[in-house]
């Protein structure tokens, strides 16, 4: 019983933490940018049909962003330049991307 309680607390903490990574590190910046999170999601989805490919390419870009890897238009990059590399570690990035996927993917949201 004691073990189960500990596990439940840990799970809640982990989920809360991952949601927090996305909420604390992604949402605040994109909120004021023309490249909204919704638009960026649909742009990635249009290019990467499969979940795994979507997540891998996004992670790779966030870790080492380049103009070539960027899916956003050239005019946008000319104006705002390519974003800087994320300072989140791999685990944090995975958690944030998972949250991002769960939030917008059509498979779970279309009706």
């Amino acid at each position: 019983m004691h073990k189960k309680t500990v596990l439940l607390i840990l799970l809640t903490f982990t989920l809360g933490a991952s949601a927090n990574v996305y909420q604390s590190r992604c949402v605040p910046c994109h909120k004021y940018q023309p490249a909204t999170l919704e638009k960026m999601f649909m742009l990635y989805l249009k290019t990467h049909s499969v979940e795994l490919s979507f997540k891998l390419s996004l992670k790779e870009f966030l870790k080492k962003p380049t103009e070539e890897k960027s899916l956003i238009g050239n005019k946008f990059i000319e104006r705002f330049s390519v974003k800087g590399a994320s300072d989140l570690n791999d685990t944090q990035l995975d958690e944030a991307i998972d949250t991002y996927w769960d939030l917008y993917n059509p498979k779970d949201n279309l009706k």
Partner: protein
Amino acid sequence: MLVSKSKGTSLHRSSERSSLLRFLALYITLVALLLLLLGMLHYKSQKELTFSNQRSILATYANEQYKAIKELHEEYPQNLTYPRNTKFRSAIYDLSGVKIFSLMKLNPKHFGRDMYRINDSIHFLKPLDENYYLGAKYLFIEVDEDFTWKDDVIKDIIIYGTLTLLVLAIFGFFFVSIFLRPMRNSITLLDDFIKDTTHELNTPISAILANIEMMDKDAMGEKNEKKLARINIAAKTVSHLYQDLTYLTLSHNRKSKDEWVDLKQLIQDRVEYFAILAGSKKITFTLDLKDSALFIDAVKIARVVDNLISNAIKYNKRHGTIFITLRKQHLIVRDTGIGIESNEVNEIFERYTRFNSSEGGFGIGLNIVRSIINEYSLQIEVESVLNQGTTIRINFLKGTIDA
């Protein structure tokens, strides 16, 4: 007993008619099978034609749905409602074949075929190559298969198939008639020959038999008496043959004169008549006769009895026995002769068929028996065991009353 006549005796054309019917049956069966095959091919081609006609319609539906999905992609996630259409059902799948969203009744079966049947539905696949709107790589369109063509095609197959079969059957009948003409000519030739021959036999045979009867047997020696008996047997054999041939060739011109015939008396007379013939093979008769009468043509029933006894003598062994049993409802003639194979029993009534080629005769006796039996709606049963003997039973069942 009173027996009813069902049809006229017709021997001359029976084998021709039988061949005609057999050939026609075979011909019509083969033509029907061929038409059935053609009908199936037509049905299949119509099915494929209808299926391929659906392709352009389904492609239009797929384009409509593609545009709707593209629009939804732009509006997403503000709009989360997948586009629906009353004319079809659709589904989208990602590049790895995982379902994103589906309104279809059935899951897709093939991701590599653009169109296929599945149960009573048709699936049409449109791959999205350039942009994966909503993450979709595969767009499926599903419609219920249209079966309205089926009834029309089946109706056409039945109508045209039946008409063709009828026309071909009529042609077949004429062709068969032409093919059978040589056989008909041969039978006619044989019949004419028999008719002419028998006509010439009548007077001498009658003269021989009459003179044998009139001869004074007491005045001749034992040797001459034996010789006379042999002449008598030979003459009676020829006379019997003459009777059959006359019946066969002239009976068509003769009207039946039905009357009450005392069967017991008739059988006793005929046994006496054949006694000398049976005696030549040391064959004995065992009679078990009860009173029985039949309303029938006397000449015809005499032919039946004569032929049954004659055959029983002809195919019996030396020192054999012939058992004749007469009851109110049936007549049984059993011999202890050579018998025949069970699979040949049905053939013995065929004209010019003989039990054994070593014995004489034309093989017309049992054919005559059957024709008379059929004419009076009687019933005949044959049982035979090889090397043990043959039993022929005639039942007076249909239309009989007590005399």
